[in-house]
């Protein structure tokens, strides 16, 4: 029976809670209701209200409480109902959680789960990809899984990590992506990218839902004889610069792809990493396919035009290949 991306996260959380009595969940409507997306459905029945803590509507309070519990050696997993609301708990994340270890050597093991991304007609406040605010903040780790396997393996690693982790779950993948998962326990290491598809002609470096767009584009391009390598970053911070640069050395051409808006997106950090490290291997401009610099629009035709898709990737990839 294939496991969905959502179910994979659920299983990962469940296993970690079974394994370690110090792991607990905190957030809005996660208990009796099981969470806005039902990721934690059934948890309160099994683990009890002590370990599945429903809170008032207070994102800063939730993150702050997770920090406090983390400082005490517990392993809180906080849920933001939508990633868009993480900006309401922003100061606690970027100033409190991120800086404790460096400043006074205090560990803040804590995971903030944040359902992110568009494609579900959520409009400007239920569709955002706020990962770069956190990639910009030393002291945090930032994870954006694309597959059910990685979602499960990485949420487990995140729970076990001794530093604060922001875990972005792409809402459009929740029920769309399924795969058979190993029966035995596994984790996926934080900070390691994955070669999602091997190729020699050009590298598409991406993460999250866009991995699937890249793979779809790669299929079409393969039929045209263009062999695309797809790198799924999996973790944005710490960034697996080695895997990125290895791929560039191999293909010499780079297309950076993200669902996030254009300016100051992940493409920038990748581009500077590549030019400062493997510039001489580049045979063409580094190009990017991204959402444009607007809020995420609501109406289906606008949202469709907003989101990167295989057609846009293919067009740019062809150009790059010809270059």
């Amino acid at each position, binding site marked *: 029976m294939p496991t969905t991306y959502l179910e994979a996260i659920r299983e990962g959380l469940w296993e970690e809670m079974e394994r370690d009595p110090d792991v607990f969940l905190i957030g809005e409507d996660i208990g009796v209701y099981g969470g806005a997306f039902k990721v934690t459905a059934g948890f309160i029945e099994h683990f009890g209200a002590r370990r599945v803590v429903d809170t*008032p509507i*207070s994102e800063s309070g939730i993150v702050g409480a997770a920090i406090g519990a983390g400082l005490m050696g517990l392993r809180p997993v906080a849920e933001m109902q939508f990633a868009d609301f993480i900006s*309401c708990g922003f100061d606690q994340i970027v100033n409190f959680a991120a800086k404790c270890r460096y400043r006074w050597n205090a560990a803040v093991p804590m995971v903030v789960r944040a359902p992110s991304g568009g494609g579900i*007609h959520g409009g400007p406040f239920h569709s955002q990809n706020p990962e770069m605010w956190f990639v910009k903040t030393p002291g945090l780790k930032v994870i954006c899984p694309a597959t059910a396997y990685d979602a499960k393996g990485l949420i487990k690693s995140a729970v076990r990590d001794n530093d604060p982790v922001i875990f972005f779950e792409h809402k459009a993948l929740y029920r769309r992506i399924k795969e058979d998962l190993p029966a035995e326990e596994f984790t996926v290491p934080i900070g390691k990218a994955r070669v999602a598809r091997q190729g020699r002609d050009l590298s598409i470096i991406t993460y999250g839902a866009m991995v699937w767009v890249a793979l779809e584009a790669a299929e079409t391009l393969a039929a045209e004889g263009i062999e695309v390598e797809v790198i799924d970053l999996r973790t944005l911070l710490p960034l697996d610069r080695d895997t990125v640069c290895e791929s560039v050395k191999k293909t010499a051409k780079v297309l950076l792809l993200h669902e996030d808006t254009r300016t100051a997106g992940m493409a920038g950090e990748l581009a500077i990493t590549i030019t400062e490290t493997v510039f001489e291997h580049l045979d063409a401009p580094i190009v990017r396919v991204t959402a444009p610099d607007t809020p995420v*629009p609501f109406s*289906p*035709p606008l949202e469709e*035009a907003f989101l990167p898709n295989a057609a846009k990737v293919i067009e740019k990839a062809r150009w790059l290949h010809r270059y």
Partner: protein
Amino acid sequence: MSIAPTCPSQSQRGSDESAAEAGLARRCLYYMSLMRETEDRIERKLYRQGKILGGVYVGRGQEAIPVGSALHALPADVLLPSHRDMAVFFIRGIPLGRIFAQYMGRMGGLTNGRDGNMHMGDMSAGIGIVSIISALAATVPVAAGVALALQYRGTNAVAFSYFGDGSTSRGDWHEGVNMATVLKLPVVYLCNNNQYAYSTPLSGQMACANVADRGPAYGMPAEIVDGNDVLAVYEATARAVAHARSGLGPYLLECKTFRMTGHSAHDAAEYVPAALFEQWAKRDPIVRLEQKMIDHGWDDRAGLDALHAQVRQEVDAAVAWADERPYPDPATLLGGVYDGE
């Protein structure tokens, strides 16, 4: 042939007052009915038909709150409705068709498809509605700024700041209310306490019994009103607005009500005890107002039925109009992030 008395006799005054009351009741009923019918169409028809996508939140059972309050808004006043205050838009004159177009993501909606559902506003003169963003209570500090501007300009206009019980848990609510009370800004706070915030009952949001218990923390008068009695809301709002308008600072009205639906169109609200729905169904603000109108002889069943029929016709026409609006052209995706684009 008689000269109209300059001073009405006792009984005349009574009947004038009664006529005024009847007229007010009829206006209230009209707007409540329009809100009910509009939201029913949205939630129970267009959403299920797939003509409306995304999140849909309605104020079924809570219509008395936006209606009883917003009727006090003067043209220069500014309103910041929550996601359950649809009637505010009607009262401020937004054409109904535009609202349906908004929900359907069409051109002609208040955001021309850029945003959906209650995420709409219009700062035109005489309308003055600030669009919510999703982050709950984010409009509360903004209401303070609106009120500051009204005061800055030397007007006696007021800001109407709407929110739910659960929204009072947010830091923004506290910062906004605190600032408005410290600066004595003309804000009327209208809390719809519908006893749930998504799946969370009131006791999961606050350890005090009433939202109004929070007034003293800000040195602010706070009053509890039956939020399912539109005339009670109307009267209480009159006091609140008079207070704010005369420069005495903010005033909090807690309107006790109940959310007669799930949190949103996809939520079956199984976490709400059925008995609560039954109990509150008996207090439906529309039914209660109708009863009162009949009891006072302000109208009869036929008259009320005619009103509802008229409302249904308006809604039919508006839906038809909206459904003919085109979707936005993808070419319009980019402009308007900044001025002059």
